[in-house]
């Protein structure tokens, strides 16, 4: 009995290792703002959102399964919140049941009986919610959950549960059996009920009590501890079984809380983005082998959340390409656009909506980033070596069908060398079936691809008006030789570059 709201027929495993490079990916794409918005101030919700978002899906069918549940949750939020609250309450109440002497079997059994008695009430209520919402949902995930609750938590089952909890208080003594273990010590203990179901428990004991083939031990004064210890061994097995049952019921409530929590977190994010006047859409996940790549009004939700103001959406028509190469003015929105592409892929792979009016792309096998770093991290390595080491690490992780985002890679060396390293690398990646999105101010690098005659490259350029102002729009277009750093310099310094400086490095 499992919620199965995140996978059609599997559990979500938060403890599974994250894909390599996840931490870097999160930093480079600014995912923290997104996850904060999903948490909405609730630490647990944020943790849930983080775990699910960072454990990506790679199958389109798995993505559409979650998208359907997400739509249901947005449509019937009050029901989903009701179940989530109930699961949360069950988890919280278990923590409040104190156990005395839980280091001995009798204490442990006692606590398990107490907790399960509490859970019985929650299970009754859960069943009632399911009954009240039969037929309400349209997604496979939530329909299945309602059906499961109704069939597994039948009246008969819940009654049986209460009956067992009564018997386990052992009001009429403990009947148990053992064999001879090592050194004749009692071992392989079992607890028993009647073998004759026609007679009830109490009658059976009375009969048994009077049998003459039993040998008696009358406990000596002062031996009570010894009796307690032996009795503890006798019921250890059943105490363990019941504790395990308790843990499983608790874990069911936890899973329910966790899985619904993800959709409530998604709803939080949805509220924020829509509240700020931006569009969202359920993306169309294409198989990994497809080369469809289309977006309308694609924006970076992290930037929107951080700035709280307006953002510029961009369109992308890049069907049939494997490399998106963005060039153009500094401060022109190139990095933001690259981030928007990456975030859209991350959100799609989590089963979330995308921050765009529409978005369709192949589901990447993995998403990796290689960004220019301000700080040199590893002692003893030069900046270029540090970049190369990181890139080599990324290549170790890459598989065909992955997406890699390069932001001004190898700009720590001179342009000619940087372009030589990057162009060979990018060509090798694309030829190996890796999709690449690359932002560069290196005309050398961009021009290399512009003149290569390849038809699998989409060129975009950050727009800059005649007067030098930036629109933050990416327009299709081959790279232009002039860098716009000059504009920036003029604006910040209030004067033009000197002629000497302009000649700059050759190339």
């Amino acid at each position, binding site marked *: 009995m499992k919620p199965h709201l995140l996978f059609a027929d599997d*559990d979500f*495993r938060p403890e599974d290792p994250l894909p390599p490079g996840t931490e870097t990916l999160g930093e480079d794409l600014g995912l923290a703002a997104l996850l904060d918005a999903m948490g909405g101030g609730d630490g647990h919700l944020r943790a849930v959102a983080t775990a699910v978002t960072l454990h990506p899906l790679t199958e389109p069918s798995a993505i559409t399964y979650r998208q359907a549940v997400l739509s249901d949750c947005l449509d019937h939020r009050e029901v989903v919140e009701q179940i989530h609250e109930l699961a949360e309450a069950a988890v919280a109440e278990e923590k409040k049941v104190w156990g005395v002497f839980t280091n001995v*079997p009798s204490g*442990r059994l006692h606590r398990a009986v107490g907790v399960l008695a509490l859970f019985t009430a929650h299970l009754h209520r859960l069943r009632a919610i399911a009954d009240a919402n039969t037929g309400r949902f349209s997604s496979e995930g939530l329909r299945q959950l309602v059906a499961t609750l109704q069939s597994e938590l039948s009246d008969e089952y819940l009654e*049986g*549960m209460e009956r*067992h909890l009564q018997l386990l208080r052992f009001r*009429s003594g403990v*009947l148990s*059996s053992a*064999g*001879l273990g*090592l*050194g*004749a*010590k*009692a071992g392989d203990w*079992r*607890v028993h*009920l009647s073998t004759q179901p026609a007679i009830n428990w109490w009658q059976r004991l009375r009969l*048994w009590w009077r049998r003459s083939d*039993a*040998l008696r*031990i*009358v*406990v000596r004064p002062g*031996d009570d501890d*010894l*009796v307690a*210890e*032996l*009795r*503890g*061994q*006798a019921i*250890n*097995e*059943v*105490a*363990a*079984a*019941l504790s*395990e*049952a308790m*843990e*499983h*019921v608790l874990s069911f409530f936890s899973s329910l809380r966790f899985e619904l929590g993800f959709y409530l977190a998604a709803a939080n994010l949805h509220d924020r983005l829509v509240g700020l006047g931006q569009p969202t859409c359920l993306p169309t996940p294409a198989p990994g082998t497809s080369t469809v790549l289309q977006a309308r009004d694609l924006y970076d939700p992290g930037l929107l959340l951080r700035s709280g103001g307006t953002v510029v959406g961009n369109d992308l028509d890049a069907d049939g390409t494997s490399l998106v190469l963005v060039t153009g003015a500094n401060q022109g929105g190139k990095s933001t656009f690259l981030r928007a592409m990456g975030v859209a892929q991350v959100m799609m792979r989590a089963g979330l909506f995308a921050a765009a009016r529409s978005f369709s792309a192949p589901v990447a096998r993995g998403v990796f980033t290689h960004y220019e770093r301000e700080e040199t991290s590893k002692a003893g390595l030069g900046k270029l*070596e540090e970049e*190369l080491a990181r*890139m*080599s690490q990324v*290549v*170790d992780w*890459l*598989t065909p069908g992955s997406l890699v985002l390069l932001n001004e890679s190898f700009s720590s060396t001179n342009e000619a060398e940087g372009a030589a390293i990057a162009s*060979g*690398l990018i060509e090798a*990646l694309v030829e*190996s079936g*890796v999709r690449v999105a690359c932002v560069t101010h290196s005309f050398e690098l961009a021009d290399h691809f512009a003149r290569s005659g390849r038809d699998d490259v989409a060129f975009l350029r950050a727009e800059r008006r005649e007067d030098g102002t930036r629109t933050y729009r990416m327009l299709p277009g081959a790279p232009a030789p002039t860098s716009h750093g000059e504009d920036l310099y003029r604006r910040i310094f209030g004067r033009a570059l000197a002629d000497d400086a302009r000649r700059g490095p050759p190339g």
Partner: protein
Amino acid sequence: MSGVPMGSASVLFPSPPSPATEIDPPTVPSSFTDLDFDQIVKAVVAGHDEYRLRPYFGLPLESVDAVVYRQEVFAALDGTPLTETMDNFSDRMRSVRAMLTLAEEMRHRYQRRCWLLTAAATYVGAVTGLLGELEQAPVTARALVGWRERLARYVGSEAFETLRQDMTEARGAIARVRYTLLFYARVIRVRRFEGETDYGEEIASFFARFQQRGGTDHHLEMSGRPTMNRLEQQVLDRVVALFPDAFGALDRFCEAHPVWLDQLVVRFDREIQFYLAYLEVVRSLRASGLPVCYPVLTSSKDEAVHSTYDLALALRRLAQSEEAGGPGAVVTNDYRLSGPERILVVTGPNQGGKTTFARAFGQLHWLAALGCPVPGVHARLFLADKVLSHFGLGENLADMRGRLEDDLVRVRETLEQASSGSVVVLNEIFSSTTLRDATVLSRSVLADLSALDALGVCVTFVDELASFDHKTVSMVAGVDAADPTVRTFKLERRPADGRAYAVVLAERYGLSHDRVKERLAR
């Protein structure tokens, strides 16, 4: 055991030395500590204390045949399922000993007898299991074939068969005992079990629908003490009364078989540990990428060794790496002696790996003479009658004699013990005197060694010695060609060349076009 003559009763010696030698071996020469061989032995026998293996490491073998006798066993166990067979056997024999000790401590007659029964069952299982697996295994090692024959004879004997039958019968009877207890108020009632159903199982299956992934084991660890308290003994008394047949069978077994451990089995259990203990070390060396090989031993003094290293140093690094993570690099070295060549003269910078090499050279010959696999990819070695050493002295010498005098006295002693069949390791001799003295004295010592025709290595700061005569070979501890302050710890007949630092940085990181395609094609 009589009749057809069989091979040696020992899996260590084709013809065993006298028992006295084995227990109290001749005192080991000072080279044992000079070469850090004591550290190696310590690491090998660690965790095998109860077998007293140390003496075996002080008894070098005197014939190539005796060495091969052991190498055969090593090879049979090295990385084969037979190791597991032997480990299993040892584990069971260890349990047997523990149980016999425990039985002695039991107060209740039937507790004691139950332990004796379990010990006997474990022993019978160990012996028959070992024989069964040896019969399945493709064993050709002479020592193991001989042992298999002896063991088969023992297992086929009437005494063993009776032991097995009586044990099996008593075990079956005891295993069938199952009793029921009712705890109610201050009375416990004990009765024979009558097939009542398991309520714990019923609970588990009732709640099974909530089964989630994972979960913890909720069984509480019950008291592990093997003895019984008053109440448990009272219960046992009643159980004995309820099951007279089962406990009768137990009594019959114990009275018929007061003693059953066979001395040959006990001896094998100890001797085989020599191999198992050493192979444990071999495994951990290989796991961290260090080569180990079976040396080819000859009576010729042509030697060729590829990629050897100081085993004591490697084991220290391994031990450290378990704490620190990532084993420190161990540098390997090659050397060759051919034709008239007998003595490696090692010179080079301080801390350049010279002494380490000298130790490795000595260890190689010690280990080879014990029949053990040695550090390296390949080794052809001379079987030495002795491994002798003379190491420069530390600062804490009691200055009874002058240092130089002491050096000279000990060198003379060393040379007196040496024969043409010996290996001599001289490390930093005469380092406490002037260059002129050292040169003259060292030349004289080398002349003696050369005349003896012994094999040896001589670490010295006197460069002149490197070209002493046709029997000496010069080895130099290397430095980095680009940065002479960096030691390579490689000893070579010729120093290596430098390298170029170029713009092939990307290539070095595997990021050239072709390398990236290769890497992604995996």
